């Protein structure tokens, strides 16, 4: 049985199902209990699981992140709620120096099974400190896994997998998608890490897109289809581990690739994936690989400015047209 539910509801269901299954799971963060977070994603959980397992913390991100690391090392499986992805900078030592390295530094003796749930995404008129998409920051650190759900269906399946993973996993939800509905089965399901999803099959160009950029890619593909350009959409689902094979197989077929992610373009997720395509599918490329990330500016407040900083379907269409027509792109 499949019904349509919001991404917010999908996350809530994933956590509730897993907490029912495993009593070691606790939820930790600012206003996670009665308030259910500012986005109301966690509403109702405290009623079912009580304040022993749904724990409101003070506004002390490094503190509760560190507590989660220690709890994960000693038998609990914490899910940490970081209210905004922008607060990642506050927890970097505990996440990157402690959680990410503990298993390795202890020669495999200690494990840190925790999930850091946070969000990303601009165009909510929240300005520079509540709009960032910082997945590249954590994807850079060995020892962390990074999941980027692109719909309610993806969010539920990936979060359940994240909770069962024995490693620290950071999962980024696009805060603009919390109310977006998608078909989600009522039956339990999991989505494995490191297996990309071909969202749409095509012949002429591969659009590799993460999180909400999958929607952008889908809109672009519709427009391109009207012009006779057939786009294939690959959603990596997790950027660590990355399903390189599926991406390369698609690019070898289409000979062209555009990589879209909402993080800043420079030194970002798009750069990493584009580089791997260029290295490993070079002789199959009939056009340069195009990166499309957020502009390299702090996210501005004014709607007039903010909207032009993120990749759009029109931009994807424009780039796809140029490379499919064989126009000279960024070349001398």
């Amino acid at each position, binding site marked *: 049985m499949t019904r349509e539910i919001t991404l917010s509801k999908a996350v809530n269901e994933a956590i509730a199902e897993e907490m029912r299954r495993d009593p070691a799971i606790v939820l930790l963060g600012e206003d996670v209990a009665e308030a259910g977070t500012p986005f109301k994603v966690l509403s109702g959980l405290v009623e079912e699981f009580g304040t022993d397992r749904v724990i409101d913390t003070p506004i002390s991100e490094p503190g509760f992140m560190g*507590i989660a*690391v220690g709890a994960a090392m*000693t038998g609990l499986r914490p899910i940490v709620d970081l209210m905004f992805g922008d607060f990642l900078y506050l927890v970097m030592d505990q996440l990157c120096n402690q959680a990410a390295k503990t298993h*390795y530094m*202890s020669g495999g003796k200690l494990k840190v099974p925790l999930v850091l749930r946070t969000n990303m995404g601009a165009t909510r008129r929240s300005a520079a400190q509540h709009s960032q998409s910082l997945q590249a920051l954590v994807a850079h650190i060995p020892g962390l896994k990074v999941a980027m759900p692109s719909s309610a269906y993806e969010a539920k399946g990936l979060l359940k997998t994240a909770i069962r993973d024995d490693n620290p996993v950071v999962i980024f939800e696009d805060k603009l998608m919390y109310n977006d509905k998608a078909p989600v089965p009522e039956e339990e399901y999991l989505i494995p890490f490191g297996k990309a999803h071909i969202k749409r099959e095509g012949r002429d160009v591969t659009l590799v897109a993460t999180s909400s950029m999958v929607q952008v890619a889908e809109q672009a593909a519709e427009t391109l289809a009207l012009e006779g350009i057939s786009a294939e959409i690959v959603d990596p689902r997790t950027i660590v581990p990355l399903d390189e094979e599926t991406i390369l197989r698609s690019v070898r077929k289409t000979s062209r690739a555009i990589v879209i992610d909402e993080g800043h373009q420079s030194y970002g997720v798009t750069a990493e994936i584009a580089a791997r395509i260029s290295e490993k599918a070079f002789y199959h490329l009939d056009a340069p690989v195009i990166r499309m990330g957020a502009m390299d500016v702090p996210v501005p407040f004014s709607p007039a400015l903010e909207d032009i900083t993120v990749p759009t379907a029109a931009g994807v269409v424009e780039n796809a047209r140029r490379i499919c027509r064989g126009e000279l792109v960024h070349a001398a």
Partner: protein
Amino acid sequence: MSAARSKKKHNTDDYLRMYRQMVRIRAFEDNANQLYLSAKMPGLTHMYSGQEAVAVGICEALTPEDKITSTHRGHGHCVAKGANFREMFCELLGKEEGYCRGKGGSMHIADQANGNLGANAIVGGSMGIATGSALSAKRLGTNHVTVCFFGDGATAQGLWYEVMNMAALWKLPVIYACENNGYSEYTKTDEIAAGSLTARAEAFGIESFRVDGQDVLAVNQLAQRLVERCRKGEGPFFIELETYRYHGHHVGDINRDYYRSRDEEAEWKKVRDPISNFGNWLIDQKIMTADELVAIDKEIVSDAEAAVKYALEAKYPDVREVDMHVYAETAAWGETQ
């Protein structure tokens, strides 16, 4: 009568064990220092010598299931919590048989079988971990106590205030044990810490204590009391232990005249050495003779030397291990889509 004798016997065993553990730490550090000086040990290390009564006094009040978190100056905590010389020296030398298969080194020894959640090379970095371990104990009902060792320098880290706040709010079974050795790296503690250290914890409503960290019996008695109270749900607690590090901040920190005098160092070693003072007490109390103590010292020194020899000859990890343990293998996820 027989009850009294058995109690006396029990105490004697405890005293001897404390003496041995302190001598073991000193012997370990003397050998580690020698390995560094003779350029046989890669990297850098921080000597615990002088602070033995702190680690031993506290860890002797814990069970193997109780947890500790340790610091960059962590060999003493590791030995006191029950670690073996061999695996420790192997780790110091980056050998496969080390506690962390050579991946951690001096500053990251973890020995989870004995409840040691690991040393931490970020000053104050383990305060969250210790508090989280206490949250696990409370949530899972294990009745374990966690001791968070850190130095006076770490009291300047904001993380401590965040986690003390939560530990007090949630009444967690954690003891914050601040080893105040008078120096924050190369700076006097007076110059980096305003006000009193105990007042910091008291501000969160955490009961706080100061104790002579060179007196292993005083430390142990206080620790026993607080560990018991933690088990009853009366934690958290804070202890400031007044102690002294004999060496510099690290083994290469030899020119220390600009921050502390040689006279001061000599005075502590002469008057307040935790091992010789406790040894003299054992002789005064007729628990042990001087000859018996010398025999213990000799045996431990030769154990340490044998472990060093073993570690020097032990093999390095296979290079194929370099990318092993980045991620833990996760048991089957169940049905997947």
